[in-house]
């Protein structure tokens, strides 16, 4: 039964990774850049929820909504200030800028909220389910994480394939210049992508901090990198791929922590990334892109 418990924990953690990975996958697919700061937007979302719940005693669900709005605006602002001037720059410069933004968010949070981790109160009030006479327990947080992530993946797939803005995103990810010639506003599409990704990061922040209730300035960094691993694993640019990759990474991490070594669980996740990139760099659902001169 211990294995089943671990598996459920893994799937629930993986669902959170999936929600974060969606943000990476969208931005990578459309702006062709690795948004290093994505993980730190999660942390900002967590702090917004925490302070609106404790200092202003706002209803938890309303707090999540506020966090989504704040993070969406933050995502757009980051894109406008830091990434937009570098549209034509080399990927090296863009990556360094993204690392700078990530560092900026982390250290601003350190100065604003202090070094000490705060105790996050769960925003979820769903009762947990006990199976097999209490041997297997599924927490309310796990149920909510899994359900929310499935809903998000379905909603996002519908948005991308059925709406006009969504199809514009697809077109931009396929060929930026051709999309522009077809009358698609590239800047607006990229802004929209960052807005969606950052809004999802706020939701991921709520789920992550509810399941693991310590919140500090580096809370988002590691889950962010692991979610990127998940996005690569599933095939970068693919929405269902992010879900599959997220859940696999979550399960691998929890099982590795339980059966191999608690200190090495991060190392195991990174080893998976390296193996994936060596064996199948396009990931499970990714498309192969040929390099042209």
């Amino acid at each position, binding site marked *: 039964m211990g294995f089943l418990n671990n598996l459920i924990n893994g799937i629930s953690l993986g669902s959170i990774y999936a929600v974060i990975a969606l943000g990476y996958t969208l931005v*990578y697919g459309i702006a062709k*850049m*690795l948004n290093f700061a994505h993980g730190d937007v999660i942390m900002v979302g967590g702090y917004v929820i925490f302070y609106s719940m404790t200092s202003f005693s706002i209803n938890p669900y309303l707090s999540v909504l506020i966090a989504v709005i704040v993070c969406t605006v933050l995502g757009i602002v980051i894109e406008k200030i*830091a990434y937009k*001037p*570098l549209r*034509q*720059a*080399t*990927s*090296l*410069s*863009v*990556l*360094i*800028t993204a*690392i*700078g*933004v*990530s*560092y*900026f968010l*982390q*250290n*601003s949070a*350190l*100065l604003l909220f202090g070094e000490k981790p705060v105790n996050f109160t769960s925003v979820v009030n769903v009762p947990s389910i006990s199976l097999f006479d209490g041997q297997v327990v599924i927490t309310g947080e796990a149920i909510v994480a899994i359900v929310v992530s499935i809903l998000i993946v379905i909603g996002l797939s519908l948005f991308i394939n059925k709406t006009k803005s969504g199809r514009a995103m697809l077109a931009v990810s396929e060929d930026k210049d051709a999309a522009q010639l077809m009358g698609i506003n590239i800047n607006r599409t990229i802004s929209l992508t960052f807005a969606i990704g950052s809004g999802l990061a706020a939701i991921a922040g709520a789920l992550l901090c509810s399941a693991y209730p310590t919140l500090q300035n580096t809370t988002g*960094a590691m889950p962010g*990198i692991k979610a*990127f*691993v998940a996005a*690569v694993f599933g095939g970068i640019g693919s929405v269902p791929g992010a879900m599959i990759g997220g859940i696999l990474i979550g399960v691998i991490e929890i099982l590795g922590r339980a059966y191999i*070594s608690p*200190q*090495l669980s*991060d*190392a195991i996740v*990174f*080893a998976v*990334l*390296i193996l994936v*990139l*060596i064996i199948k*760099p396009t990931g499970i659902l990714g498309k192969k892109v040929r*390099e042209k*001169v």
Partner: protein
Amino acid sequence: MNNKTALAKTKMLKPQTKKSFTTYIMVTVVFVIMMILSSTGNVSSQIDGLLVPLCVYSILAVSLNLTVGILGELSLGQAGFMCVGAYASALFSIATKETILVEWVRFPLAILVGGIFAAIFGILIGIPVLRLNGDYLAIVTLAFGEIIKNVFAALYVGIDSKGLHIALNQADMNLEADGTEIIRGALGVKGVPNDSSFVVGFILLLITLIISYNYINSRTGRAVKAIRDNSIATESVGLNITKYKLITFALTAFLAGIAGALYSHNYSTLQASKFDYNLSILILVFVVLGGIGNIRGSVIAAIILTLIPELLRSINSYRMLIYSIVLIVMMILTSNEKARTFIVTNFGKLKGMVLKIFKRKDTAEKEVK
């Protein structure tokens, strides 16, 4: 007359030779000044403690610049290579403490061991990593750095009459009563001899600079620069891209390993948690501020960015924030077309004005004569 021949001689020197010698002289002058100041007791103990770390950071920045500036790929695993070098050299020193008693024989060997082990790791990591490029390469080097740190932090190594014991926790080691623990997991290594000094650091920095400058201007270095500028064209000319990438990567790792050895012998204890992602980013900040591809700039940036926060305690808590802003602003200023033209035109004017003032002075002096 004498002046003229000297002038002719400097004109005959290749520009890159001139550049490298200016750097050597600059570093030597700073070293001599610091030595004089510290021997006459004019340096606070705070600065005195920073002298070796300054050399460590400078070496790391120069070596990272080889990968970032010359090869044009971002490596975020610099701290990992440094960690390998630090551990390997520390273990070597502890193991040979009784057999090699002379410090100036043991320490260079330890440094060499650190560098070679780091280079081996660099090659092992480089073979899979260098098939990738851009963002993927960066994230994989980050992953390797984290793996190295995590593995060293979880490792227990002990030695007794039965031989070497390696385990993932203290109880599994099964040491005999006479055994000693060498690596104690997250607590790290204890009892590393304090062999590092500013003189050794300076010599290593100078060696690093000489290797780097000669490498950049060598045939291999030119090939690497060609790969940076257009890898497909380079490949079509018949150069083996992977080979040149691997050499650069291994050299970066080797120099980082040397820095690690210098670092580990400066403190008596060594913990893997010190070699985290933040350290890799810090080195990247040095490279970016000093100018990507500019070796001398890396050294200057490393020195300035290490000294200023220590000297101005009031800004110390904002240090990381300033670093992050440095990264963003430097990238926008150097990579954005508009920002670049703005700088070039305005600084061009400024330079012209300064030159005019100096020229006027010159002519005024001549008139007086």
